[in-house]
């Protein structure tokens, strides 16, 4: 029972960070800021949510799979963030050079 309440809290908290990240995505003025909001908040949200779900998992196998999911999403979002940032920098440079 306690575990379930804890899990619920974690998931709700995770969802809050997701919402915050999304608001940041929508409200911030430029790509880098948006990226900042999104990666940071979503990373945290993802971790909290995974933790919450892991608490509810029935077996070690399920837990390990949730961990894997967290790992891969974290890595790929990091790479994506990097790629987008790179792209932004390059295109900014290209546009200043062009003009």
């Amino acid at each position, binding site marked *: 029972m306690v575990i379930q309440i804890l899990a619920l809290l974690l998931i709700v908290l995770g969802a809050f960070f997701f919402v915050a990240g999304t608001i940041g995505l929508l409200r911030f003025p430029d790509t880098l800021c948006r990226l900042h909001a999104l990666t940071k908040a979503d990373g945290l949200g993802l971790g909290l949510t995974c933790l919450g779900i892991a608490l509810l998992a029935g077996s070690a196998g399920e837990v390990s799979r949730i961990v894997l999911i967290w790992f*891969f999403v974290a*890595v*790929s979002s990091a*790479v994506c963030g*990097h*790629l987008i940032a*790179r*792209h932004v920098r390059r295109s900014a440079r290209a546009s200043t050079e062009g003009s």
Partner: protein
Amino acid sequence: MTDPLLIFDVILGLAIVALAVAVLAMHDRFAMIVLFIVFGLLSALAWVRLSAPDVALAEAAIGTGLTGALLLTTLHHIRATPPAPVPVPAGAIIANLGLCGLIFGGLVVAFLSTPLQAPGLALPVAQNMEASGVAHPVTAVLLNFRAYDTLMEVVVLLAAIVAVWMVERGTAQAPSPVMGEIYRGFARLALPAIVIIGTYLLWVGAYAPGGAFQGGAVLAAVGLLLLLSRLYRPQPAHRPLARLGFVLGTAVFAGIALLVASGGRVPFEYPAAHAKTLILLIEGMVTISIAVTLAALFHGREPEYASVSENHK
């Protein structure tokens, strides 16, 4: 009405429809494709809600993921020319709106007047599961009961790569974005994991959601990673092998379908004792073909020697 999930369904349904409209209405082409990907993922979610996890997996991986990649790479090619604003006469829009509205209305009426309890083929499928050689009904339908359809589906895929290789030729390809070292490192890290997941999906298809198409799509992602990270560059010399990869699934599938027809059996009638082995063999080969083909479809044109490629003025 008591089920709160129904509210979720309604919201999901409305979101899907809204996204469909947004995809067509979005001015920016990149945003259009992104919205489409969101649309596809939400559709997959809806199909999970309809107890169709296999379909959801396939839609997410193939219908959305790979299709999205295809769309993006095409956009990358043609982005140089912004779409010429061709004004569509308002009359045509209104007429078509009316037409589609009518069609929508008619289909809704037909749909609502049809009770959603047609007997379907669930019962015959369940009765014949024993003899099918696999434990997962969708796989049984795909690889055994309606194996002919599935063979032809693989043929469609083959036709697609033949046509794509035919169509695109030695025109200068727009340079693909350079992804850099971090991406390459990520690719090195992710590749083995993706291979494992893809193979797992293929294997698990025998008794749980998954199978050749989902597995093949995931493995195709390997190809995309390799291509994008430049870890692999298609070479003209690799063409024979690639062709072999494209036709492998079709050839093995068709070959087995024909070869089992002996001793009074008809084509596609796998001997009961070997059904599972044969199906797995077919699935394995089809998975390879799907993976290779989808990756090749992403890459587009046939790798050619400079002398073969046409010289444009």
